[in-house]
């Protein structure tokens, strides 16, 4: 089968890192190659073969391919692997459409459930490099399972969510990132009276805005966006105000009626979602968060260098938000969720429920065959400036033809 494969090569990652500095002219494809590889064999009967229809390119994929992500997670990755963890596909045994909950927790590994997995907190699984399959945080980082950027992959039964017919493939491929956004939003209590900043309006930022609006509906959502399309969608998804990165400080100051002391605000935003998580974005988020407020790192941070003086002095909570899973009941008792008791307290389930309602598929702006992966990655790397939001591969010609036929019928 055809697949885009990442091999462990310091030279290639190094070259990618160097090339990413000149991202407007060089693609981050050095660490990736298009190969013919054997289809993956199921470790046991709990695994299912899946043919991806669409598989998104995530910010974390780009970060990994450009050598900008931290090497701290290398122990949780098995090389060579096929990336792609935002997947809508067809399971071969039933021919049903599914989305894949990509996290590879204890259940997928055939292990007794760890303390976290037993509570449904699969995002915090403690045994990511044990069991029936090789190490891997998620599908898309594991040698045993393959990933969405291929014509075939393996998924554990527990990872699969059969899709209702009324969900389009575009909506479906955004379910996994939407689940991340919902989890992000539920990481910290937010009151209806709160002012919230969403810093960064790539896919995750925009989905965070949408999740915030639909689940919490806080008093004010301020989106920080660089590019016109991002600004337009941020408003459509529920932001009350969209500002450029250089204007976020003054805007938050004005909205919170703060004064300025030594470059920080006397008050600030109650909660800030940093959907970029770079040194500069985290530093800016600290400046605009009120004392005892919270910053949630939704983007994937790497090695960052930040002056944390004001995080300390202002007693700001800095929280991580990784993938999805069962959510804290306390957080679910707030806002709109309180009135929707039929919804399950699991962010992935919530994402499946909400994806069509929120029309998240509108974020899918570009799709490519695997053969055009260089072009796809180039667009994904420079998505904002090139008018793109979510870029995805459509790896399976067979599935595409089938979908087309169904559409015609």
């Amino acid at each position: 089968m055809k697949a885009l494969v990442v091999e462990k090569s310091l030279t290639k990652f190094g070259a990618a890192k160097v090339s990413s500095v000149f991202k407007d002219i060089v693609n981050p494809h050095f660490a990736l190659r298009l190969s013919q590889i054997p289809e993956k064999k199921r470790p046991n009967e709990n695994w299912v073969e899946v043919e991806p229809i669409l598989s998104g390119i995530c910010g974390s994929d780009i970060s990994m391919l450009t050598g900008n992500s931290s090497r701290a997670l290398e122990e949780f990755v098995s090389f060579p692997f096929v990336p792609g963890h935002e997947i809508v596909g067809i399971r071969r045994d039933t021919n049903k459409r599914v989305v894949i909950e990509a996290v590879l927790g204890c259940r997928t590994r055939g292990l007794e459930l760890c303390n976290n997995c037993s509570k449904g907190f699969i995002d915090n699984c403690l045994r990511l490099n044990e069991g029936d399959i090789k190490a891997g945080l998620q599908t898309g980082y594991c040698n045993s399972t393959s990933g969405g950027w291929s014509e075939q992959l393996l998924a554990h039964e527990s990872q699969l969510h059969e899709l209702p017919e009324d969900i389009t493939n575009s909506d479906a491929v955004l379910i996994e990132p939407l689940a991340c956004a919902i989890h992000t939003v539920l990481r910290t209590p937010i009151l209806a009276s709160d002012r919230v900043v969403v810093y960064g309006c790539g896919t995750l930022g925009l989905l965070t805005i949408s999740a915030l609006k639909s689940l919490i509906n806080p008093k004010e959502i301020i989106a920080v966006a660089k590019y016109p399309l991002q600004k337009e969608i941020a408003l459509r998804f529920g932001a009350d105000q969209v500002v450029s990165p250089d204007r976020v400080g003054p805007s938050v100051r004005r909205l919170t009626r703060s004064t300025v002391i030594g470059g920080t605000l006397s008050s600030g935003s109650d909660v800030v979602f940093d959907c970029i998580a770079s040194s500069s974005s985290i530093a800016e988020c600290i400046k605009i968060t009120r004392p005892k407020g919270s910053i949630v790192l939704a983007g994937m941070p790497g090695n960052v260098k930040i002056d944390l003086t004001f995080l300390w002095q202002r007693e700001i909570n800095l929280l991580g938000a990784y993938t999805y899973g069962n959510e804290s009941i306390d957080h679910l008792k707030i806002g709109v969720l309180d009135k929707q008791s039929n919804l399950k307290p699991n962010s992935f389930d919530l994402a499946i429920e909400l994806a069509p309602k929120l029309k998240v598929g509108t974020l899918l702006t570009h799709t490519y065959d695997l053969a055009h992966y260089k072009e796809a990655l180039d667009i994904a790397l420079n998505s904002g400036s090139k008018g793109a939001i979510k870029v995805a591969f459509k790896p399976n010609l067979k599935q595409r033809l089938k979908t087309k036929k169904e559409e015609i019928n």
Partner: protein
Amino acid sequence: MTQRPGFVLDVDRSTPPTLFWHGEGWKLEKLPVGSRVIYAPEPKSPIKDPSRAIYEALENPIGDSKPLKDLMFSDMKLTIAFDDISLPLPPMQAPDIRQRVIETVLEIAAEVGVEDVVLIAALALHRRMTEPELRHALGNRVFDAFNPHGLLLQHDAEDLDGLEYIGKTEKGEDVEISKRAATSDLIVYVNINLVAMDGGHKSVATGLASYKSLKHHHNVATMLASKSFMDQHKSELHSSNWRMGRLLKKEGIKIFQIETTLNNNTFPSQFRFLEKREWEWDLRDRATYLSSKKALDNLPSNLKRSIFNSINSPHKMTSIQAGEVEEVHKITTENVYAQQMVSIEGQSDIVSFGLPYISPYNVNSVLNPILVACLGLGYFFNLYRGKPLVREGGVVILSHPTPYEFNPVHHPSYIDFFEDVLSVSTDPLYIQENFEESFATDPWYRHLYRTGNAYHGVHPFYMWYWCAHALEHVGKVIIVGGDVRAVKRLGFQRASTFRDALEMAQDTVGSNPSLTHFHIPPLAIADVS
């Protein structure tokens, strides 16, 4: 030598190119044949002995007022208020008129034995003046006598303890002014009346007022009902101030008004070509123009700015009148008109202005884009009596580089207004309804206004409201040579050259439009019939 009156030139083939101010510089434009160019009257002869004239004015008041000396008594509370840095423009060569007048007032007070004397810079919502600026306006002697003892104040419209609520006018307008002034036995207000809008009841009712009071006439409805600010009888801005001033009088607040007028001698002799009509330029004028233009074109903007900010005008006093506010102001207005009025027949399809580097609100600072709009559409457009120079639906062409640049010390709320308000709407009424209050009551702007040298948070709104009449009247505004992003944010169009601007105007006013160029400064008022 008698002054020549204002002049309207009909451009023909032999007319030399016309000088346009262009920020911190200038250029020559060849205007289409048939265009009109309005030139200000030449400077009136100044008063030969200003000190004597001041003394005589205080001794011989106008209207229902005793001489200043007779209004004073030894244990009285005397407040002397004076115009701030916004007047005159450019700042005048020392000694400033304010210094001369205040020194005379203080001499009289000393003769009477008045000890409780306080000076107040009538800032309204303008920025606080710096020490050098105060020294320039008042002279070192006055400054050193009052400032070290805390007797030289700058009006603080946000000092709740320092304000006195007087009451409401018959139209429900709140009147609230400086407590020190309101509780004084006498307020002496020292004006420099550069244009007809200045002075009268506006001096105290605006200069010493709070936001609560000012907002009754500094709003869009008032601006739209003022046609123009230079014609008191057709200016709702003045009507409101007059109602307030009369309430002050009714409530027993005594004001001794001193108003002074200046001649049109605006620029130092080395720049005399700026005040001359181009066909009268001699060899020296041409050489000065060419050499200064070449030098300015090659200088960085901050250096150009510092050069222009160092210019002190050779303005000279042409009249002084003192006494009762309204009677004084009538004569002042006549004197301003006598210096500045030019009669014009009929409106034109297009009016053009070359905007200089300075406006009342950027002395020693940057003419930011909001102030560019205000100078062109708020001030220059309103320099008329009768009808605007441009017909309804016509086009205004402004020439200015309009840099995307702000002075963060002087204009902090301007930056946020430009970025966060004008990016949402340029409609003055929408802006007033949706944004004004949050800026006006913002604690950070308030802090900077009270303790730094910042204009009040609401000030950029007022600048935009000044433009409301023009924005309602004209069909298009074009800025020649403006920064693309800044002009777009203002909601105007940008042209690279004056010729391009004329072509763009034709979309609005049709082919072969009539054009009037208002050749200011030096300042003039167009009396349009």
